[in-house]
């Protein structure tokens, strides 16, 4: 066991303090057990410092391969005859010229990112050659005007701005008229654009699918001479044996846009739950600039009608509310964000380990409990939608379910981003972040987002209650209330970036 004095000395030493180092030398020389402990502390300190900046195993392997392939030849295959050396030198020159003409040439740059971690930055130039995307989504604008949206995990090789090989992953290519003829090859298909937008997906066996989203493309298998022309809503599959088949078009399988820059000063509502108990009024104040210059207090409600507030617990920042899952919730008069307008909902949630499925609906909701008209964030309580205990974004009869099991009685930061627009769709326009990392989804419904605020039955923003639980006297209704802790609820009228979300999670503010 390390004493408090030693622990302070160790931290000072690890932080680079020379005096602490001197003080520790004597301790180490006289106490072998302490020496072992200090060595272990130092090793773990170094490993942690490294682990927090290290690239993923896949990205590292890819970087090694890139370096190896950039080498002119493997030593194992060299021959040391003079003429061979001369030939090799010539080959090296040719290879060098080839590389100078290809790999060092920029084919475009990254225009947008979502959930990719630290590997890439917007504006980063992309050279001809291999490109790997291990996590998230990246939008790349090529120098000929083609815009590619890549979904991880993706491995591709840019031959130049007019042709690429997609070895694995999903991409959507938007090709302007001046770049007609842009080509995508996969292990099982050749695709040439004829002025259009199309999606390509390649799995890890090399099998691929092509879906025409707009306009026209021509496709063939690599072994064939003849191209087939495809038009909007046509789709073809190509198996690893290069057999082509007609399949049903699935335009919503593809992410077609990423959030752009958010407003400089977004409007938002914020409930910190730190002000309760001051006046026993069972209300929680709303902070922030408001939306439409209005902020809305959250009023405690119970089925008994006595306004008893939920219990207060220690939250991620200050105090938090604990919903009992039986009869209590919070009401506001904020009508919500309607239609397909962009929005971000962020909060901390703590889900108990003994959480029961009927206690999942809903952490936060607004809109109309009718088909596609709601916006409700829950902990998934329905096996039919996906694994229980994961985050769930529902619009009524359509939903996204995440993959991280939140039932561990720990605080987790959750952010749901909808970047709006005419084509805003649950399957392609929503990003979920858990603890600052992009969440992979178990399943996504294909459904346009159209949150209904103006129907007589539409409800304003509530926390802790199922939007579909209409009649308080209906005691037979299940899935009525959420059970668990909620803290620092933020609601923005714009799509936040991952950087924003990480800042919010870390500092509980966007402006710090």
């Amino acid at each position, binding site marked *: 066991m*390390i004493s*408090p004095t030693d*622990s*302070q000395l*160790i*931290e000072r*030493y690890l*932080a680079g303090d020379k005096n602490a*180092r001197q003080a*520790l*030398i004597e301790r*180490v*020389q006289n106490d072998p057990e302490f*020496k*072992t402990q*200090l*060595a*272990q*502390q*130092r*090793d*773990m*300190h*170094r*490993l*942690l*410092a*490294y*682990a*927090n*900046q*290290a*690239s993923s*195993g*896949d990205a*590292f*392997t890819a*970087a*090694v*391969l890139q*370096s*190896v*392939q950039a*080498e002119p030849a*493997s*030593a*194992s*295959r060299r021959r040391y005859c003079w003429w061979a050396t001369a030939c090799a030198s010539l080959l090296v020159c040719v290879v060098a010229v080839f590389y100078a003409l290809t790999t060092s040439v920029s084919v475009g740059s990254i225009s947008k990112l979502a959930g990719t971690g630290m590997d890439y930055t917007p504006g980063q130039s992309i050279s001809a050659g291999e490109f790997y995307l291990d996590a998230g989504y990246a939008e790349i604008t090529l120098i000929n005007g083609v815009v590619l949206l890549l979904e991880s995990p993706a491995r591709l090789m840019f031959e130049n701005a007019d042709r690429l090989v997609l070895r694995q992953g999903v991409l959507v290519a938007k090709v302007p008229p001046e770049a007609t003829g842009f080509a995508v090859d996969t292990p099982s298909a050749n695709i040439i654009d004829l002025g259009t937008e199309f999606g390509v997906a390649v799995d890890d066996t090399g099998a691929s699918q092509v879906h025409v989203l707009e306009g026209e493309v021509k496709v063939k298998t690599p072994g064939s001479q003849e191209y087939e022309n495809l038009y909007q809503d046509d789709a073809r599959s190509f198996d690893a044996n290069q057999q082509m088949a007609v399949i049903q078009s699935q335009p919503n399988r593809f992410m077609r846009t990423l959030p752009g820059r958010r407003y400089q000063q977004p409007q938002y509502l914020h409930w910190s739950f730190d002000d309760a108990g001051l006046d026993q009024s069972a209300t929680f104040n709303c902070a922030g600039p408001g939306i439409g210059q209005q902020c809305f207090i959250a009023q405690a409600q119970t089925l008994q009608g006595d306004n008893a507030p939920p219990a207060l617990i220690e939250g991620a920042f200050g105090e938090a509310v604990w919903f009992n899952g039986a009869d209590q919730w919070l009401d506001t008069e904020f009508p919500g964000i309607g239609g397909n307008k962009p929005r971000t909902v962020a909060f901390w949630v703590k889900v108990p380990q003994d959480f029961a499925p009927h206690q999942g609906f809903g952490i936060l909701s607004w809109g109309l409990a009718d088909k596609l008209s709601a916006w409700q964030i829950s902990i998934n309580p329905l096996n039919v939608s996906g694994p229980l205990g994961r985050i769930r974004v529902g619009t009524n009869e359509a939903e996204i379910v995440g993959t991280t099991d939140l039932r561990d009685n*720990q*605080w*987790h930061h959750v952010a749901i981003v909808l970047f709006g627009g005419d084509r805003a769709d649950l399957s392609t326009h929503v990003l979920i972040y858990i603890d600052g990392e992009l969440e992979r989804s178990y399943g996504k419904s294909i459904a346009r987002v159209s949150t209904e605020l103006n129907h007589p039955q539409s409800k304003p923003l509530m926390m802790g209650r199922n939007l579909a639980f209409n009649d308080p006297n209906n005691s037979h209704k299940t899935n009525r209330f959420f059970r668990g802790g909620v803290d620092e609820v933020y609601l923005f009228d714009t799509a936040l970036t991952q950087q924003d979300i990480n800042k919010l999670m*870390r500092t509980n503010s966007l402006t710090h």
Partner: protein
Amino acid sequence: MKLATEHNANDAQRLCRWVARARGGDIKAFEYLVSQQQSRVRSYLAKRTDYSADVDDLAQESFVLAWQKLATLHDDAAFSGWVLSIAQNLLRNHHRKQARLAPTEPDLLAQLLDEQQQQHPDEQEAELSLLRQCLLKLDHPAQKTLRLYYREGYSLQELREAMGVAHSTLTMRLNRYRKKLRDCINRGY
């Protein structure tokens, strides 16, 4: 125990096959070897230097050299140890270079602790991957503390303020978290 021995023997045989293929110029085989060995090599280097930003470069260089010199490796089964020895040499050169660029007085404490490190070689484990899994097993305040300190670069003073604890509490916690992670890695997650 018998099963474990057989399993290890199978792994070793498999590794030898991939090394032989890579020596024949099969780049996919070498890619597989890198993916299997990278965590071990990077952990080895990371634990032996305070220049964590240089670890990936050194590890990458180790594998590139291994690819170039693969013909000189006579015992395929020794591939893992051989790559580590390449990494060790590169690291030694790197430290010499750093010492020339920024000369400092000899660090006696570091030398004493390095002796300790050599007495207990535990490079059989891919500690980096295990560490990532073990971090997830810590409770939320521990994860938060380590994230702020190591990822966000908080100083001890900033960290103390962010976590709202006394200095000695914070240093004791950091010591404890590292110990927990070490135990978790030793258990194999």
